[in-house]
Structure formats: structure tokens, C-alpha cells
């Protein structure tokens, strides 16, 4: 049994492993990192994998270390995710994602009348706040609209 599970989450030689992603959010993690068809590195991911603290998703990106700024965006949709930088099969760095205070070009403003949803040459801009009651809150720097739920659904 143990071996089979190990096969699912195979070790990588060099790259980035994003662990403890909120179950079901792995694809959104790829989106938030801007990983598309053009991305050349090998990517593998597991969804709904059993972990010590319940089910989780895991994403592995081989041969590429992403910047801290890029990785911290993951906190918008999965604040408990951890980042492992792997070199020669060893974890050389392990960090929790840190919620950024500002994001640009990552999320679409939910206000259809916002200038950032028009054809102007600008990127969406949000300040990021964390509230105990409502979790992560994004406030549009153009129109001041607030996004407090379903952030993943509004990823660009």
C-alpha cells in the first residue's frame, strides 16, 4: 500500500513542490501562477490526497524555482499552502506562503462597471487584507469594490 501511495507523489530532483494546498484548488494554483500551455517544465499534481490534516492537493514543478512573489499569490486561495524548494532530491527550503499586501493582474474585479474591466491598457490592482471574520479580502484600487469570497472564481 505504502509503495503505491509513494508513486502518486513521486520525488523530484530539482524544482518546487507546493504542498498542503486546500483540496480541489490545485488547478487554480496553476492558474494563479500563470502556468499555461506555453510553460515548458514538467508539472505533476495530485488532488484530494490524504494528509495528516485531512485531504489536500499537491503540485510539483520540475526544474524550476518560482519566485517568492509568484508563490505568495497562492495564499489568496490557499493560505495554508507550503512551498518546498528541492535541489538534488533534498528539501533545501520550506516556507509557508505569505499573504501579499498587493496583487496586480491576478484577479478580475467583480464590479462590471470598473475601469479595470474595460479595454484600457491597465492591469487589475488590489490591496489584500485579512480579516478574522471574513478571511482574505481584496479591495480594488480603482473602484474600491471588495471581493471577500470566491476569489478563485475571479482569477484572470
Amino acid at each position, binding site marked *: 500500500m505504502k509503495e503505491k501511495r509513494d508513486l502518486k507523489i513521486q520525488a523530484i530532483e530539482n524544482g518546487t513542490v507546493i504542498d498542503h494546498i486546500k483540496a480541489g484548488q490545485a488547478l487554480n494554483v496553476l492558474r494563479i501562477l500563470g502556468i499555461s500551455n506555453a510553460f515548458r517544465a514538467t508539472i505533476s499534481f495530485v488532488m484530494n490526497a490524504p494528509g495528516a490534516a485531512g485531504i489536500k492537493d499537491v503540485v510539483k514543478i520540475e526544474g524550476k524555482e518560482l519566485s517568492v512573489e509568484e508563490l505568495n499569490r497562492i495564499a489568496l486561495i490557499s493560505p495554508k499552502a507550503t512551498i518546498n524548494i528541492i535541489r538534488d532530491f533534498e528539501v533545501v527550503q520550506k516556507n509557508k506562503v505569505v499573504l501579499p499586501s498587493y496583487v496586480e493582474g491576478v484577479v478580475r474585479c467583480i*464590479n462590471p*462597471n*470598473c*475601469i*479595470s474591466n*474595460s*479595454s*484600457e*491598457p*491597465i492591469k487589475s490592482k488590489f490591496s489584500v487584507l485579512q480579516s478574522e471574520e471574513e478571511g482574505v479580502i481584496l479591495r*480594488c*484600487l*480603482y*473602484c*474600491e*469594490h*471588495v471581493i471577500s469570497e470566491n476569489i478563485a472564481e475571479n482569477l484572470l
Partner: protein
Amino acid sequence: MKDFSRKEIDYVLDTAEKLEPVARGEERSRLLDGKIIALLFFEPSTRTRLSFEAATQRLGGQVLNLGSVEASSVMKGENLADTIRVISNYADLIVLRHPLDGSARMAAEFSSVPIINGGDGSLHHPTQTFLDLYTIRRESHLEGLKIAMAGDLKYGRTVHSLCHALSLYGAEITLVSPPELRMPLEIVRDLQKNNIRIRETDSLENIIGDVEVLYMTRVQRERFPDPEEYEKVKNKLRVTGDLLKNADPSLKILHPLPRVNEISPEVDSTPYACYFEQAFYGVPTRMALLALATGVIE
């Protein structure tokens, strides 16, 4: 409006007061001599545009008008960012009114000259708030004001920013609206967080004896699917001579105008009516903002 501290607001209002004799035509000023103010109005607003024109000309400045949007390059598909980049080469300041939320903030990113937000989308109209504050200060007082806001409190952007600004002066705010048009909960919560006392009611009669300023707004028919409902609400939120029999003698009634029938014409000649004076105060307030933004007054 939230970007302004109380100190900054006071400074704008003090400047407006100094310029008021110029706005009345009693004194002459050349403060904006040699300055060109571009008025870019992407949606119609006669009152705001004319008062900016009057303010500029009273200070000896020149106005550059976009004219109608239909006749401009906007119709050829030019985006706002490019329009701003071009016009900021022609003028010393741009007053922008645009239908999209956040357009003034974006314009400021692309402009090489200051931008004054003359109303963007459905959310902000800061120069209106400044003139409302100025009117209250001139005709009543700002500190610890007992004010009622009545009418469409859900969609009315003027009341939202005015409430926020008044919270800097420790106001007691009464909200008078039909249940369908109540002030959005997040704004009420924000005000309460600032220790502002808020009470809500649906009738002017209950509160008219107990407020120093009544800020009326228009209730739009199209907000009500049922015309009968609209008629009921309309009559409950109507200022008449009868209603004012119970008013505090120092009461002042404000309205951003245009009004439809929420203030009956018989009120116009009473000492309570302040809405036409309020429209005039738009001129010294906008003069102050123009002078401060262009840097001719520091």
C-alpha cells in the same frame, strides 16, 4: 473622499471661504491667469461642468472643453488612457467625469497634470461632497452635527461619501429611507466603527424636530417595480410646509439637485431652504480645489 484627512478637508473649506467674494463677483482674482483647465465630460452633467467653468473663469483661467463625446476621437475608439495622455499636454489640469468606476484613479496614472474627479461611475463625486460640507459649515456647523439623510440611501453616492466625511466630525446621523433603499450595511458598519451614532427610520415626521440639517435626495421611480409602492414611498419622503411646522428653527434643508417632487415648492421661500445656495457654493468650493490642485495656492 476617503483619501482626505479632516485637516485636509478643513484646509479646502478654509480656502473656499477666502475665495467666496470672488465667486460672488464682488472681488476680482487672477489666480489662474495663464492656466488652462480641460473639462473632459464623458457623460452629461450641466451643473458640475458649468460650475467648474464659472470657477475657472472667476479665477482668470481659460477653459478647454472636450465638447460632445460623439464628435470626439472617443467615437473613433480611442481609450481613456490615450485621451488623457494627449490632453494633459494641452492643459494645466484636467477635470474628468466618466461613467466607469475608478476612471479618475486610472486617469491620474496616465496624466502628467493633476486630475480632479468630477464624478466617476456610480461611486464617487468628491467635489459634490466638498460643496456639501462647505454648505453645512457655512449655513450650520460641522462639529457634532445632527443630520438626517433622506431618500435613496442605497444607490445615492452623494450620501455615502458625505456620511463618511461627516464621521470625521463626529456627526449624529439619522437615515430616513424606505426599507428597499436603505443604506448598505457595510457603510453603516464602517460608520459605527468610527463611533458614529446611527439611527434608521422610514418617516421624516418622526425626526424632523430633532435634526439641524436635512439632506434630501431624489427617489427614482425606476427603483420600484410596483408603481403603487413608489407612490407610497414618495409621499412619506416629501418635505412640505406642514412637515416643517415641527422643525427646529435652525434647520437647514440641502439637496444635491435636481429635485423632482421630494421638496414642495412652498418650502423654497422659507429660511430652511438652502439648496439653491448650496448649488452656488459649488463655485467657491471648486475654485479652492482648482487653485490648490494647480498649486497657485499652496
